[in-house]
């Protein structure tokens, strides 16, 4: 099963990349209230139980994928058609 990890800068932390993208979009007359840039990681696991899969993905995320000081994350099971 595939698990997706969406990693985003924590709201209270300055997102330098988001700020730069937001400004550029604004200069091209796109109306953007706020833009934040994160990362998306797909992990393909040899696992069929969703709970266990999410559990493993959470361990991996906390182990290395995200930096708790500046980022938060969300996990999701990817259902492929």
């Amino acid at each position, binding site marked *: 099963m595939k698990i997706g990890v969406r990693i985003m800068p924590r709201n*209270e*932390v*300055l*997102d*330098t990349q988001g*700020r*730069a993208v937001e*400004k550029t979009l604004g200069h091209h007359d796109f109306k953007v209230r706020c833009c934040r840039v994160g990362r998306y990681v797909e992990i393909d696991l040899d696992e069929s139980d969703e709970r266990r899969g999410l559990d493993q993905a959470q361990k991996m995320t906390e182990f290395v994928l995200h*930096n708790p*000081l*500046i980022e938060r994350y969300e996990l999701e099971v990817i259902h492929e058609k």
Partner: protein
Amino acid sequence: MELDKRLKFYRLSRSEYERIESLLGRPPQGVEWALFSALWSEHCSYKSSRVHLKKFAFKSARVRVVESVGENAGIIDLGEGERVAFKMESHNHPSFIEPTQGAATGVGGILRDIFTMGARPVASADYLCFGEPTADRMEALVAGVVKGIGGYGNCVGVPTITGQTEFHASYNTNILVNAMNVGVFQPEDKVFLSKASGPGNYVVYVGAKTGRDGVHGASMASESFDEDSEKKRPNVQIGDPFFEKLLIESCLEAMSENLVVAIQDMGAAGLTSSSFEMASKGNVGFEIHLDRVPLRDPSMSPEEVLLSESQERMLLICEPEKFDRLKSIFDRWDLDATVIGNVVSERKVTLHWRGETLTSLDPHLLVEEAPLYERPFKIWTSQNRVSKREEIFSTLQKALGSKSGSEVLKTILRDFRGASRSWIYRQYDQRVGASTVLDADHSIGALRLKSSGRGLGMVLGCRPYLMRWDARVGAMDAIVHPALELAVKGFEPLAVTDCLNFGNPERESIMSEFVASVEAMSEICKALGTPVISGNVSFYNETLGKNISSTPATGVVGLRRSGVNQIPSDLFESEDDKIFLIRLPQVTLGGALNENLCGSSLGVGELDATQLASFVNRTLEIANRFPIRSSRVVGKFGLAYTLARMGRKRGCRILEEDLGRVGITQKEMLFCENLYEAILVLPEKASGNFLRDLSTHVEAHYLGSVGGDDLQIGEWISLSTQEIQKSYQQGWGETFEALA
């Protein structure tokens, strides 16, 4: 009870509270707590060190000091219209918590200190101390810090041209990240100060919006780490080098059009320190409307706005009629410039928030009236001496056992403490700015000054193993060693910045080392005529009761008046060149190898500042008078290691009988350290009368000649240049496998 809790939260002592009460004539209220907490913190007020730092003050005959301690950075005059601003600062605590952002914001902060004054930042240097490679998180800390320094410096476009990296168990839970920056004023550039003036002038906020980053950071940097530190952690400050680059260009542009009356970086304690310090220095007051400060998060409280350490912000004073022009410059660079208040003649800073007056305080109370402590210390006495030099050699002999000289040397070259740091500096842009003459691959960093074509040299100092042996010697060395490194390359050492990293000053042993260091440094600086023009004190480098080795890091800046393309090489260059040793051996010690093998070092002798200064001066004279092809100061691990580092390209031949004349009669002595010695290499043709010419200058000896593909030192050492290079380059990867 309630009071005790508050005092703890704001990190104020009871006596400090009483002092505040008597200064105000009433108890502090509201945001005043936060103001006093921040500005009276060790970090902002230097309350434990100020008494001693005064010893650094003297008038130098060597160099004209334009600005000194008390401003954002110090400035010296190089003549021909060129001036340089430089300073070094610590970012130890934040880097231990989040190494990449901690180191990055350290670089950002020191850059702002430089361009705030009107100088364009042209070169950076970093002094790093890490723990043992096997210590918890250490690989990640090393990788993170290097990434942070490189990421910021490279993007902002300021080359990192030199550095120093140390390792020792005392830094396992408290690494040191000290960043230095140098900026140049061209002849037409004006110096800008932080002294506010002109009632009616605008107080203008420029740069990034304010967020909750690092609230209470300054007071946190002023106490020891404990298990709670994790919880007390303020939001990590995020540095944005891209934004900083825009800030540099816009500020320098505004300054070149003379639109700025005074300016200061919002660094530690953010808006609080910049506003109160600027007002206090100018003997004026401010009316500030905190609700006009551009915010990233509109739900912030006034206290948070005051204490935020959001990066890339400046506070400046501007005449009202010039504001439109100022604003158009910042607009063009896509930055905010917002009037948040104005200057008033009465010396009172009044803070407004949504129609309410939060406080109105004389800025002197927070700045000038900060407490001053004379922490107890003991007069320094020599440490770790042995009665006879022979004891040092025999100790080393025992520790080395039956190892051959070649084996010992190879081991040192491969040890992470002796191996090349190229893994680090390859990640730094060393050439942006197109001025770099000597990059981080060299023993000193050097730039070519654009206007005059002269060479500007910079090098860092402080060898922590010497500090551990004897703080007085170690601190004096933190000046002499870099000064000598400049001198052997023909650069006249001119002035010094320092970053005094120490443990908890409330401990007598630490305070004693601090006082001994400051005294030793000021003594040698006076003798050399190289004033300390800027710096920073970082106390409380203590975690769970363990203190770091006292580490007074320094940066010394020097000037080479001509021939930037004729600077002596660090390496042996040409067959048959002649190798000489000049020396003033005042101290002999087992040194770095001794400490690595035995845990501590033994030594004899004392340093004499006057004689050392004259040795440095004579070395400089020699470097400028003779056609020196290669040169190097004999440093850690002694003569053999120094020769090996010079012999990475071409070998040399040194005979036992020539070593004998220097007094080196056994292999262990090649690994001892004498303070001070330097190697000078001359083309054969020019070397004929060299010793005779030098005899009135310094003690000098002939050592041997350059040549071949091996380093041959007596019967004791025989290593090919290839083996030397291989060991020297492999060492890092063998220690930091994950980083290789």
